[in-house]
């Protein structure tokens, strides 16, 4: 089975070479038959990659320690779920997952792209083939997951304990679906540059792909943030860690792309800019892969001592980013620029959105790479951490978030800022009220906290206002309004939900950062502790045994107002003997939208135990908001107008009225 997988991988590489050349030649010479090769080759390449991945997964599931990658990252006593997720919980396997998703998306274009112009489709598949070929070669040359060991070891070395978690089952695949989803936008852009033309149907194809990629990337980042929150044991949800930034940059650029693609589709404007953004977004995805996979983040020196992988990805990076940008520089002038619009218009608002999002992306990029560059050039070592991003990224987000509610309420071409403001008056009043209440009545609230709460309410109120206005709130009878509401295009709901989710996430962040409380203390069994109105009693430590670990589990009872127990919270120090690693299993109790977070520390000599306890108000909204954003993207995807080639359907009068495009 393992050799079958290995063989399939080599074959998939060979096919990707065919895929990158034959359709391209066909498109240049106008040869229909050569162009038609692209589709079947792409689909077969995907089938072979899937077979290869299945072979590796079965080696992991069956604990076949004769495979080096399985030996290094698995153990026979691991629960089956972690044996399987271990397939992509390591460098080699995760790269295989990367190409699996790449070929899957390519196959989707091949199968569903029949209404694309033949040359465009051929070029898109060829560019996908180039990306595939580069990464197949990378895997086969430097990161082959199928290498055998002889003699085969009896037992594996276990998966890194902090990765033995359900979060790992979901986080990387979602993140990769996002990263790699942008490869399709990239391929469409490069194909458009090769052809030297670009039109609104191009945007129509690119927008759904952007939405899909953005949706998964949002989910992947939110999932990763929650995983870090409960698994790393000190309750932080975002660290501005370079690895996080690596996924955050494509998200920011992708968000900008999502918005500029709307302008391009509806108004044929910002064509060249949208194309450039599509290239940049995927370039940042590649950069993220490079940063995480090359080891360059640990230290420039670590990178230099084991350069094979890093240098290889760096070459891929240079080739694709450099190549596509060169092509852009050569061909962009051939593309016709878009139409005119007034500064106060929906296009104008979206341009501002793009200005702030792009600057924010660049800020994160510079903050992430500056220490590396400085060390490589001068040898000086500096750190760029959270305080830098708070001071730079934060101020960039304030004006952006403040203009978000205006965007959907402005008309295309020429908007009426005063009318939009009048419609937003209720949301504005609510935001000011929230700000004042926070500032005046909540103890210890800072100006920043009040501002944050106000901004979050402004975003939520703005999103609801958008829906209300488009349903005709206040101007028509309630029954008519309801009917109009139900008849609104799904993309209107999508926009409102995404902006609403943004507001919720912001509220969660402000709530946790500004109103969270914490206590660090030593406790003996029977002692109680009180934090923000919640009383906990420590019941004691008890040793427990898991399949591949032992743990000291601390049991805490949450006491209600009457002194009776209201449920238990467990937190544990876990020891994984194979890797000699200790992890902290945090204890979390969700109360409303807030959480009580408990983390067990070391045992003292006198029998007491260090306990860290946090009260995190509204913290669940951080990820809940992410889910709402995802729902918004999904809603937009369901909009029939986004589905190219969907059968024509008469527009309802309400929809036409609500969306005068």
């Amino acid at each position, binding site marked *: 089975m393992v050799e079958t997988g290995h063989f399939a991988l080599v074959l998939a590489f060979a096919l990707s070479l065919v895929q990158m050349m034959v359709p391209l030649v066909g498109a240049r010479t106008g040869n229909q038959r050569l162009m038609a090769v692209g589709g079947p080759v792409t689909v077969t390449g995907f089938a072979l990659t899937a077979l290869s991945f299945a072979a590796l997964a079965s080696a992991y599931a069956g604990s076949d320690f004769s495979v080096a990658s399985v030996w290094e990252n698995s153990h026979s006593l691991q629960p089956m779920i972690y044996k399987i997720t271990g397939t992509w919980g390591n460098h080699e396997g995760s790269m295989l997952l990367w190409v699996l998703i790449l070929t899957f998306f390519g196959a989707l274009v091949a199968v569903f792209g029949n209404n694309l112009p033949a040359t465009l489709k051929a070029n898109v598949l060829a560019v996908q083939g180039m990306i595939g070929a580069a990464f197949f070669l990378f895997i086969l040359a430097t990161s082959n997951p199928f290498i055998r060991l002889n003699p085969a070891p009896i037992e594996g070395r276990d998966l890194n304990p902090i990765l033995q978690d359900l979060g790992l089952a979901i986080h990387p695949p979602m993140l990769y679906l996002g990263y790699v989803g942008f490869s399709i936008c990239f391929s469409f852009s490069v194909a458009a540059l090769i052809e030297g033309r670009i039109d*609104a149907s191009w945007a129509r194809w690119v927008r759904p792909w952007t939405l899909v990629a953005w949706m998964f990337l949002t989910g992947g980042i939110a999932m990763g943030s929650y995983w870090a929150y409960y698994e790393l044991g000190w309750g932080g949800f975002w*660290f501005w860690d370079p690895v996080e930034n690596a996924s955050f940059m494509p998200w920011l650029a992708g968000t900008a792309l999502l918005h500029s693609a709307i302008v391009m589709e509806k108004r044929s404007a910002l064509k060249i800019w949208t194309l450039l953004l599509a290239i940049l977004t995927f370039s940042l995805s590649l950069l993220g892969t490079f940063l995480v996979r090359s080891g360059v983040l640990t230290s420039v*020196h670590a990178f230099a001592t084991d350069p094979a992988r890093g240098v290889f990805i760096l070459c891929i990076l240079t080739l694709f980013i450099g190549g596509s940008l060169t092509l852009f520089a050569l061909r962009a002038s051939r593309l*016709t620029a878009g139409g005119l619009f007034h500064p106060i218009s929906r296009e104008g608002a979206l341009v501002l959105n793009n200005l702030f999002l*792009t600057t924010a992306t660049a800020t994160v990029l510079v903050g992430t790479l500056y220490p590396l560059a400085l060390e490589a050039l001068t040898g000086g070592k*500096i750190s*760029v951490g959270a305080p*830098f991003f708070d001071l730079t990224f934060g101020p960039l987000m304030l004006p952006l978030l403040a203009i978000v509610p205006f965007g959907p309420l402005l008309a295309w071409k020429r908007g009426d800022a005063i009318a939009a403001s009048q419609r937003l008056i209720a949301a504005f009043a609510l935001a000011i009220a929230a700000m004042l209440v926070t500032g005046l009545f909540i103890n210890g609230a800072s100006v920043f906290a009040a501002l944050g709460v106000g901004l979050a309410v402004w975003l939520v109120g703005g999103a609801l206002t958008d829906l209300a206005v488009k349903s005709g709130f206040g101007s028509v009878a309630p029954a008519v309004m309801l009917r109009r509401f139900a008849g609104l295009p799904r993309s209107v709901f999508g926009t409102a939900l995404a902006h609403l989710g943004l507001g919720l996430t912001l509220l969660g962040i402000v709530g946790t950062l500004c109103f969270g409380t914490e206590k660090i203390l030593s406790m003996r069994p029977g002692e109680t502790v009180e934090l923000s109105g919640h009383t906990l009693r420590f019941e004691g430590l008890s040793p427990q045994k898991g399949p591949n670990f032992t743990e000291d589990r601390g049991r805490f009872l949450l006491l209600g107002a009457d002194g009776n127990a209201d449920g238990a919270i467990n937190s544990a120090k876990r020891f994984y003997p194979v890797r000699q690693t200790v992890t902290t299993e945090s204890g979390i109790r969700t109360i409303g939208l807030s959480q009580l977070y408990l983390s067990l520390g070391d045992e003292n000599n006198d029998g007491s135990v*260090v306990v860290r306890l946090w009260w995190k108000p509204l913290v669940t909204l951080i990820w809940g908001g992410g889910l709402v954003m995802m729902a918004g993207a999904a809603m937009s995807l369901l909009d029939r107008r986004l589905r190219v080639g969907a059968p024509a*359907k008469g527009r309802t009068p309400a929809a036409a009225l609500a969306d005068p495009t």
Partner: protein
Amino acid sequence: MRARFSLASLVLLLALFFGGAAQAVKPDEVLQDPALEARARVLSEGLRCMVCQNQSIDESDADLARDLRILVRQRLVAGDTDQQVMDYVASRYGEFVLLKPRFSLRNALLWGTPVLLLIAGGIFIVFSARSRRTVPDSNLSAEEQAALDKMLRD
């Protein structure tokens, strides 16, 4: 994690240096004065734990981070201002420990990028909006235009 080797000796030195002080604060490195403690927490969040990946000493469980936390509190109790504490720590461990890079010439590009880009982008938008002229909508052939229209029809 490679850095751990070279830092091991440093950790050992620090352990010797603070050997006596460490007993005062076991879980509770916490200072008696809440105002001073609050300042210590803020300062700790701005200092990097040098044996971890991108964690502040406030978050880190490492021994070196603990030693640094104690050092910060000692300086505060001794009456240092926030800036003096940070300068003191940076002078001993290098600029690397500061999670907020200094506003220095060396870091000009780092701090300047957001501002410069925002201004440049703004200027670019204003100028390109002014100089933009109407351009014919498409250069498609008739049949391509027909196919496109079919595609765009709702």
